[in-house]
């Protein structure tokens, strides 16, 4: 069993060259970028939801609700960014939205925070990082299921129910401070209550509509999000102190960039987790010569990662070698 403290004792993360003055500019926070982003997201979600309602008796409802789900899955990026506390300068806004998006994301607010802290400390360290999406050797069927959140989502729902009953999940037991268990249980109960209201409403109305608007969209709209998060670490090197090797960035269109809050700049995010989402594109430009070239698109990334995942079934030691520019060395 690998002990985190033993690994941390030898920590030597790669750090790119950037001056303190430059970093200070990148770290600047405000509220308006976050408020504008969230207002657009809520507006888009509300608009698609209303359109879906109007078209519910036609076949057009299918693509509209699919789009609704894709946008809904953007809660993942918002939950993540608020967890880092960087979306808003006003701290309580980050916390409020962190809990809100955690409900949509089927994420346990307390466990997710602890899990993500460890993910950043020990990124892609096998046996320690709790957020590795694909184990080695990978089970390809599980990988495919998560294109629609079926494996991870089901596990998250089970964890929510377990925590609601005061039973600590094995993963949470590994990294959540026991002092935080009561808070974790109450947040899980709140999440469960919202799910029960939606299910109760669906039963009362004899309609799937409440669940098409809440809960299920994270599943049926999860395709692009899964592609997006897979490229962040899957198939890359493990057990190295270098985010250039174990983390991937990708170029996406402005819509997906907005939807996932610029997290396509994932190497940059891991190098400097306090940089707010809206500064990441500028940071990417600044560090360009020092980091490996990003995947040129989701498709480019998936066509490299999926074959590697398949190869790792027989050869788990293989990984995609990220080419580090000479300038960085």
């Amino acid at each position: 069993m690998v002990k985190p403290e033993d690994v941390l004792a030898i920590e030597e993360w790669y750090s790119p060259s950037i001056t303190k003055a430059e970093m200070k500019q990148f770290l600047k926070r405000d509220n308006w970028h976050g408020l504008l982003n969230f207002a657009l997201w809520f507006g888009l979600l509300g608009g698609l939801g209303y359109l879906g309602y109007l078209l519910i008796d036609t076949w057009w409802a299918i693509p509209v609700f699919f789009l609704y789900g894709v946008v809904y899955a953007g809660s993942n990026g918002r939950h993540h960014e608020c967890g880092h506390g960087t979306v808003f300068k006003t701290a309580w806004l980050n916390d409020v939205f962190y809990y809100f998006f955690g409900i949509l994301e089927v994420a346990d607010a307390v466990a997710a925070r602890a899990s993500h802290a460890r993910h950043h400390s020990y990124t892609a360290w096998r046996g320690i990082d709790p957020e590795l999406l694909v184990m080695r050797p990978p089970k390809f069927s599980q990988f495919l299921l998560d294109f629609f959140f079926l494996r991870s989502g089901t596990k998250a729902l089970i964890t929510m129910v377990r925590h609601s009953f005061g039973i600590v999940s094995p993963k949470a037991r590994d990294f959540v401070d026991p002092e935080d268990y009561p808070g974790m249980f109450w947040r899980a109960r709140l999440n469960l209550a919202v799910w029960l209201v939606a299910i109760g409403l669906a039963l009362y109305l004899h309609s799937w509509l409440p669940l098409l608007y809440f809960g299920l969209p994270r599943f049926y709209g999860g395709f692009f999000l899964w592609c997006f998060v897979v490229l962040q670490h899957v198939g890359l090197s493990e057990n190295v102190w270098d985010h250039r090797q174990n983390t991937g960035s990708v170029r996406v269109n402005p819509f997906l960039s907005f939807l996932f809050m610029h997290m396509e700049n994932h190497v940059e995010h891991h190098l400097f987790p306090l940089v707010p989402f809206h500064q990441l594109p500028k940071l990417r430009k600044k560090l360009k010569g020092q980091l490996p070239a990003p995947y040129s698109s989701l498709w480019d990334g998936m066509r490299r990662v999926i074959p590697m995942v398949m190869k790792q079934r027989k050869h788990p030691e293989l990984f995609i070698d990220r080419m580090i520019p000479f300038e960085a060395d």
Partner: protein
Amino acid sequence: MWTRVCSVGDVEEDDVCRFEVGGLPLAVYNLAGKFYATTALCTHEQADLGSGYLCDGIIECPKHNARFDVATGKCLRRPAKVDLKTYAVKVEGDSLFVDVEAS
């Protein structure tokens, strides 16, 4: 024991800088012209607070966003649980001194 750490001008207003004094890592803060000092290591996983985010008298750990009140060292946010050790600071002429033994 009062020890000279740096010149006053080395720490810009609303900024934090890290210094080593006899092997002791210190974070020195300038909050609107008033100076404070704490240990430079986050009590969670010893990340360098000298490269953290300073705003409204609160220093945020660059790694996991633990927050501490600069003046009191009080821990304000998880994942850290333990307060920062604080040190008295005085300015004499152009020099900034920290009492590295008192806390």
